[in-house]
């Protein structure tokens, strides 16, 4: 034992113990894990919340100096400067806030005059500022020395080139609109247009050019034809590179001196530093969103693989929680140990998740789920854990290794990432082992409990178990029945995702998932999110402004409200005003202007002659920059390709400047066109003391309201139209009516229809199948070679049908009236008619059926109307290429069989029917004699041709050499009970091989209905038969295998009357040949218990038995090659094909895939709850059906379940593969066609009224793409609908 093996064993043992522990104490462990998570995440509370809003920090102006670059920042001191307050700011911003108005107002002034001359003063101010020079001892300082020199604008901003300064001081003022040229301004006929020409048409969230140049929010500027206050405010923004206290002080002093603001109470004593976080633009958002989309796709595909658990979504959630909390724990732990995350969390998060991965969790789930269900939960968990322990450890070691390599790249960012990933991996492992495993154990326990609870009542109602069958099996089967009987559980497998661009499918898909609606919704949410995220301040300002304007307090708030009289400085020139509350002066106007709304009265400068200070300075003006968009400064700097991200700017105290202009100045500044501009001057009111005032506010109010209402109405209308449109689209595209019963009364409701994963219920059609009637009881065995179809019912009748036309060619009645004994438990053909899952009842009913059937066949003629096909569209041409068999078989079945008398030379089977009346057995001697007489051939005699009743004598043919071995057992087989019922049936060429419960093997000629030979030296019933070429293999109840070889005494040749048969099919045996069946080899004890499954292909013979093993034999020499062990229950079904792939299903619900060449097990899938009833393979998939009425499709190479199809009750095993991608399944009176690759339901075909409500129990696919379904006692021959052919 190598070291690895020992290590492996140790690990496996440890995991086993751990699994036991987890499953034993789930609740304490989960609590403990939760505590751990919380404890590890605690340090996260200290981390700042992510966000990109700017952060402010205020320092006093006095003794200000830029902070040092290398900060001695101590984290313990919260009052100290924030971390970012390091080094000099990007810029110092000095705003000079100008408020100006024309006063007193004259009635012959125009609306344009409100802002034209005030704006013209900006040129003068800018000039003053530019020319300001400080002279002191250290020399002269001018603005040029200190200001921030900017270079080119960004290449994309050509259109702003003339408006924003380039190659010089960054100095912004409204004068920039006119390139700081006074003449241009005076020549400008339309100021408003000039200002607004660069305003974006759409909703803009960041700062516009007007905001930048005016330096105040747009609505405060007062540059509007409808301005109520006739006061214009703007700022001149200076951006300094260096802080020079003296220069700034002198500038401030000079401006205050030149333009005093008497009532200004600005204290101007603090600097505000604004720090900007890293910003996320759309350009960065796109890759981020992409990574998140990929992440979600990954999580989706991963969690899709969780299967066979009680709550799929619960486990998926647990898996995601495991990964997420392990990441949180990793960040928390890293923070705890002093490592501060510097990476952008949102960016690296998807990669961390992907690196850590959900694989282990899924592997764990799969491994636990695939343990045998009948084990205790504890043991299942432990086994599952320990079986995957090695791979988990190996994967983890690999990942750790890769990450460690990454750690040694010595790139700080990658190192940090790797550190997080390592801690994340370890904590993820911890959580998987403790948290997820426990959740899994709880889930599995819940599943079992739920199933048990569900199953208890029917079990209690059961009659006491009979000692037949396998009681153990039934009990277990009861316990593990699925809890959801009627769901279409199509797993969204990986193969279902990339679909063909079939137009309709796409449309249906869109409609069903409401993709368009969801996308629009998601888009809206994202848009709003981006809006809020990128410009919270701007939006908030906008909203508050809206609210303020709408509020009844009116727009006087800005000036009036915050200026209580007490705050006004003592030097206020108008004591008369100051004693009035601000709202009082409105009253006279309201009286004089009854048409006005109360709030339209507006500002207090109502009276003409009183020197009322229109210009007031409130505390909010000092911080007016706060009302700007928070992207104002970043936008400004970004125009010059300077980023403010992770840096800060310092805002110097605002310098207030008040300018008063008299009307004369205003008139002087007027442009000649202003008089007859598009906007007429506000109409002077007859009683108006002031002209523009009353009208202006009203109009503005109305205007603004109208705009708002317009926008609202438009939005509403657009929304309604959109909703209606979507509704129509939805109606058109998604015709599925939810929950409404559709269809006729006799028909299944549409909701019951099987529909595929996309909710697409395909067209259902109804075709009238060829109904093959003639059996009195349920059909037991079906066999076909493509041309012929042989069926055998419980009553023991064997019918041979033409698979093309559905004609009954031959009937071989049961040679005795014995009740058919129930088939051995091997081949799982129990019908769960009652649906209760009780096999006993089914068997009982069987027996009852067969009892009634016993009296049935004695009735003459076997109810003649049933003999022939009801529709009977027998094309006469079909008989052209048939041999003239009228001498042998009466194809005219409508003739009353009663006419036939034994004395007449009648067609054979009619005679037999007639004979059956008086004789309980079938008189074979007559047949033989007739054959003698009519054909004069050498009698194809076998000793098995003996009547069950001793009455009629049988002429023992002396020339019976081929079957000599049977002679010893003659006496035995003469007993009436020896015939037994037919347990197995095979057809090849025109020979039918029948295995009976008595152990007799019979070979019949299908066309002529004559017994060719038989063999019955062993009395153990034949449970399964293989008829391949000339070899017959019979598996018996006692576990032995008999190999027979068929010998013909004359040369074989293709029959002349079946000309259309292609050469690949096995040779047919002409009736003129003598066929003898010789026992070549016997494997006496192939299995300990009855052989239940037998298949042969590729020269190999595979047997499956109740002793839980499979054996592989070589066909030529009957040599046992392998004994395959791996099932924990009896084998129920076996599949082998030419590619030597062997699949087996057992009572344990497991499917094993084996390699026939080596005898090794390729994969093991836990497939069904309850027995696997049938199994077949295509080149890519394994298709299994189980007692749980599920059909599961598995990927053949990986063993991954692709999807499953819920079958109707009792139709569980009815499935057939037409081609590599067409699957046909049976339902209640219908057959459904599925696309095997995608699990799409292609079509459902109803088979007429007759079979309505009857479950299709068996489906046999013929070569010519016809499907034979077994509906109780009748067969339906269905041709694959033409729609499907068109599809190809």
């Amino acid at each position: 034992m190598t070291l690895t093996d020992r290590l492996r064993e140790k690990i496996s043992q440890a995991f086993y113990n751990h699994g036991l522990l987890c499953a034993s104490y789930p609740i304490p462990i989960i609590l403990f894990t939760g505590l751990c998570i919380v404890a590890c995440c605690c340090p996260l509370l200290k981390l700042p919340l992510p966000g990109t809003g700017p952060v402010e920090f205020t320092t006093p102006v006095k003794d200000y100096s830029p902070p040092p670059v290398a900060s001695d920042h101590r984290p313990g001191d919260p009052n100290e400067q924030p971390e970012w307050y390091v080094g000099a700011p990007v810029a110092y911003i000095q705003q000079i806030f100008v408020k100006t108005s024309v006063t007193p107002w004259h009635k012959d002034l125009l609306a344009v005059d409100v802002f034209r001359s005030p704006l013209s003063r900006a040129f003068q101010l800018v000039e003053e500022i530019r020319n300001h020079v400080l002279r002191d001892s250290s020399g002269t300082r001018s603005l040029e020395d200190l200001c921030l020199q900017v270079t080119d604008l960004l290449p994309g901003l050509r259109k702003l080139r003339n408006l924003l300064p380039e190659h010089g001081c960054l100095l912004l003022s409204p004068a920039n609109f006119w390139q700081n040229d006074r003449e241009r301004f005076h020549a400008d006929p339309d100021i408003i247009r000039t200002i607004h020409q660069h305003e974006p048409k759409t909703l803009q969230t960041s700062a516009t050019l007007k905001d930048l140049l005016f330096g105040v929010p747009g609505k405060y500027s007062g540059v509007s034809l409808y301005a109520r206050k006739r006061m214009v405010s703007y700022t001149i923004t200076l951006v300094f590179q260096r802080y020079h206290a003296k220069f700034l002080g002198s500038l401030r002093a000079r401006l205050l001196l030149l333009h005093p603001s008497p009532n200004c109470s600005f204290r101007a004593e603090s600097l505000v530093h604004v720090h900007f976080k890293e910003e996320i633009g759309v350009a960065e958002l796109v890759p981020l969103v992409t990574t998140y989309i990929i992440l979600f796709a990954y999580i989706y595909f991963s969690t899709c693989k969780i299967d066979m658990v009680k709550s799929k979504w619960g486990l998926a959630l647990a898996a995601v929680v495991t990964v997420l909390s392990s990441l949180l724990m990793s960040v928390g732990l890293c923070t705890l140990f002093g490592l501060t995350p510097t990476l952008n969390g949102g960016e690296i998060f998807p990669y961390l998740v992907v690196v850590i991965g959900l694989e282990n969790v899924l592997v764990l789930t799969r491994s636990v789920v695939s343990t045998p269900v009948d084990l205790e939960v504890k043991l299942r968990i432990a086994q599952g854990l320990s079986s995957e322990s090695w791979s988990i450890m190996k994967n983890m070691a690999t990942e750790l290794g890769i990450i460690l390599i990454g750690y040694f790249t010595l790139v700080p960012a990658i190192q940090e990432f790797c550190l997080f990933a390592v801690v994340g991996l370890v904590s993820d492992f911890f959580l998987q082992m403790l948290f997820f495993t426990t959740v899994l154990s709880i889930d599995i326990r819940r599943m079992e409990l739920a199933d048990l609870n569900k199953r208890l009542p029917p079990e209690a109602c059961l009659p006491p178990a009979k000692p037949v069958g396998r009681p153990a099996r039934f009990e277990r089967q009861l316990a593990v029945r699925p809890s959801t009987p009627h769901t279409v559980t199509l797993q969204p497998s990986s193969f279902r995702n990339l679909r063909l661009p079939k137009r309709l499918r796409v449309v249906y898909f869109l409609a069903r998932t409401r993709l368009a609606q969801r996308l629009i919704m998601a888009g809206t949410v994202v848009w709003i999110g981006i809006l809020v995220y990128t410009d919270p301040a701007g939006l908030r300002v906008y909203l508050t402004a809206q609210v303020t304007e709408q509020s009844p307090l009116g727009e006087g708030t800005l000036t009036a409200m915050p200026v209580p009289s007490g705050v006004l400085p003592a030097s206020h020139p108008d004591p008369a005003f100051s004693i009035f509350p601000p709202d009082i002066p409105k009253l006279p106007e309201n009286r004089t202007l009854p048409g006005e709304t109360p709030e339209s009265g507006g500002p207090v400068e109502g009276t003409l002659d009183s020197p009322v200070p229109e210009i007031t300075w409130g505390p909010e003006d000092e911080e007016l920059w706060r009302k700007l968009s928070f992207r104002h400064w970043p936008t400004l700097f970004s125009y010059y390709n300077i980023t403010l991200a992770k840096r800060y700017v310092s805002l110097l105290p605002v310098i207030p400047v008040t300018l008063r202009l008299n009307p004369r100045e205003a008139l002087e500044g007027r442009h000649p066109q202003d008089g007859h501009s598009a906007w007429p001057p506000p109409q002077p009111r007859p009683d108006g003391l002031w002209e523009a005032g009353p009208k202006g506010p009203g109009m503005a109010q109305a205007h603004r309201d109208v705009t708002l209402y317009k926008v609202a109405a438009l939005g509403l209308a657009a929304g309604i139209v959109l909703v209606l449109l979507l509704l129509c689209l939805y109606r058109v595209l998604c015709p599925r009516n939810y929950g409404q019963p559709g269809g006729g009364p006799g028909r299944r409701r549409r909701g019951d229809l099987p529909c595929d994963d996309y909710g697409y219920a395909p067209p259902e059609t109804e075709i009238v199948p060829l109904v093959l009637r003639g059996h009195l009881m349920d059909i037991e065995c079906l066999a076909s070679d493509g041309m012929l179809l042989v069926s055998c019912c419980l009553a023991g009748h064997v019918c041979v049908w033409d698979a093309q036309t559905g004609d009954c060619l031959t009937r071989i009645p049961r040679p005795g009236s014995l009740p058919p004994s129930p088939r051995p438990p091997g081949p799982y053909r129990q019908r769960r008619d009652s649906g209760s899952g009780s096999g006993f009842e089914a068997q009982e009913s069987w027996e009852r059926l067969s009892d009634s059937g016993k009296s049935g066949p004695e009735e003459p003629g076997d109810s003649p109307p049933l003999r022939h096909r009801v529709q009977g569209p027998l094309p006469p041409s079909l008989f052209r290429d048939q041999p003239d068999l009228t001498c042998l078989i009466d194809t005219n079945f409508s003739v009353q069989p009663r006419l036939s008398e034994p004395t007449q030379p009648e067609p054979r089977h009619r005679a037999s029917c007639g004979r059956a009346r008086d004789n309980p057995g079938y008189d074979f001697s007559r047949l033989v004699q007739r054959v003698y007489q009519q054909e004069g051939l050498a009698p194809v005699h076998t000793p098995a041709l003996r009547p069950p009743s001793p009455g009629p004598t049988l002429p023992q043919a002396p020339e019976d050499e081929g079957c000599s071995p049977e002679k010893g057992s003659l006496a035995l087989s003469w007993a009436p009970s020896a015939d037994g019922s037919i347990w197995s049936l095979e057809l090849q060429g025109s020979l039918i091989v029948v295995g009976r419960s008595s152990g007799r093997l019979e070979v019949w000629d299908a066309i002529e209905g004559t017994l060719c030979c038989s063999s019955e030296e062993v009395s153990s019933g034949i449970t399964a038969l293989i008829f391949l070429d000339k070899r017959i293999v019979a598996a018996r109840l006692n576990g032995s295998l008999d190999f027979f070889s068929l010998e013909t005494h004359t040369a074989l040749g293709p029959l002349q009357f079946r000309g259309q048969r292609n050469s690949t099919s096995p040779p047919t045996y002409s009736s003129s040949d003598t066929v003898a069946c010789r026992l070549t080899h016997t494997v006496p004890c192939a299995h300990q218990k009855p052989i239940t499954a037998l298949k042969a292909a590729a020269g190999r013979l595979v047997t499956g038995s109740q002793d839980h093993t499979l054996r592989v034999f070589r066909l030529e020499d009957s040599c046992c090659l392998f004994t395959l062990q791996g099932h924990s229950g009896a084998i129920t079904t076996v599949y082998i094909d030419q590619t030597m792939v062997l699949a087996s299903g057992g009572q344990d619900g497991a499917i094993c895939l084996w390699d026939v060449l080596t005898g090794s097990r390729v994969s093991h899938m836990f497939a069904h709850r309850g027995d696997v009833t049938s199994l077949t393979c295509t080149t890519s998939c394994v298709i299994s059906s189980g007692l749980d009425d599920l059909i599961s499709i598995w990927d053949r190479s990986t063993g991954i379940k692709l999807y499953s199809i819920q079958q109707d009750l009792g139709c569980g095993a009815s499935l057939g593969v037409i081609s590599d991608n067409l699957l046909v399944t049976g339902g209640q009176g219908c057959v459904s066609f599925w696309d095997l690759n995608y699990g799409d339901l292609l079509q459902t075909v109803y088979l007429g009224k007759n079979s309505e409500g009857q479950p299709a129990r068996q489906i046999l696919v013929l070569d010519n793409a016809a499907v034979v379904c077994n509906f109780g006692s009748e067969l339906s021959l269905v041709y694959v609908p033409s729609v499907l052919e068109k599809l190809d």
Partner: protein
Amino acid sequence: MAEGETESPGPKKRGPYISSVTSRSVNLMIRGIVLFFIGVFLALVLNLLQVQRNVTLFPPDVIASIFSSAWWVPPCCGTASAVIGLLYPCIDRHLGEPHKFKREWSSVMRCVAVFVGINHASAKVDFDNNIQLSLTLAALSIGLWWTFDRSRTGFGLGVGIAFLATLVTQLLVYNGVYQYTSPDFLYVRSWLPCIFFAGGITMGNIGRQLAVYECKVIAEKSHQE
């Protein structure tokens, strides 16, 4: 399992009820189109990532920056990815070693995520010098191959693609057809081969996963059940 059947695709006896994907050319076309669009999308997104690398801090127009490179670059990437994605399964088939390792969509998604991550790292992480960048990216790329591919054909093809693509790019640049957006010439040259290698592996992974699908349809067996 499929190698036996692939030699004779033409006259193979085929049941009448095979859905339309069976026709090889249609299937091939669908796969090609899917791969093409994936390639175009990845090219646009990854280009955006590279654009952010300090070339312009404030791209004046976001939409313009998405399409900042020459118009023919994304289609070229799309075509290349379609070719690669089709080439991988084809070579797998011809060499007769069908790729069996981790053939699931979740694994493919993981691979794509790691690929984007490598691009992200190359765009965002500041490296000391270009050799370090090259070595790191090479290690990451090989790690990608080891984690998601592990086939010799995959490695060989990836190296070939990387070599060829780098050569073509260099030729284009020398002939002045195309220019790197980054002023730092060496920087681009140092990551280009690794990115091409990782991209080849990723597209091959996607292509193989798409082809799994086709194999299931095309592969046929003689047995009729």
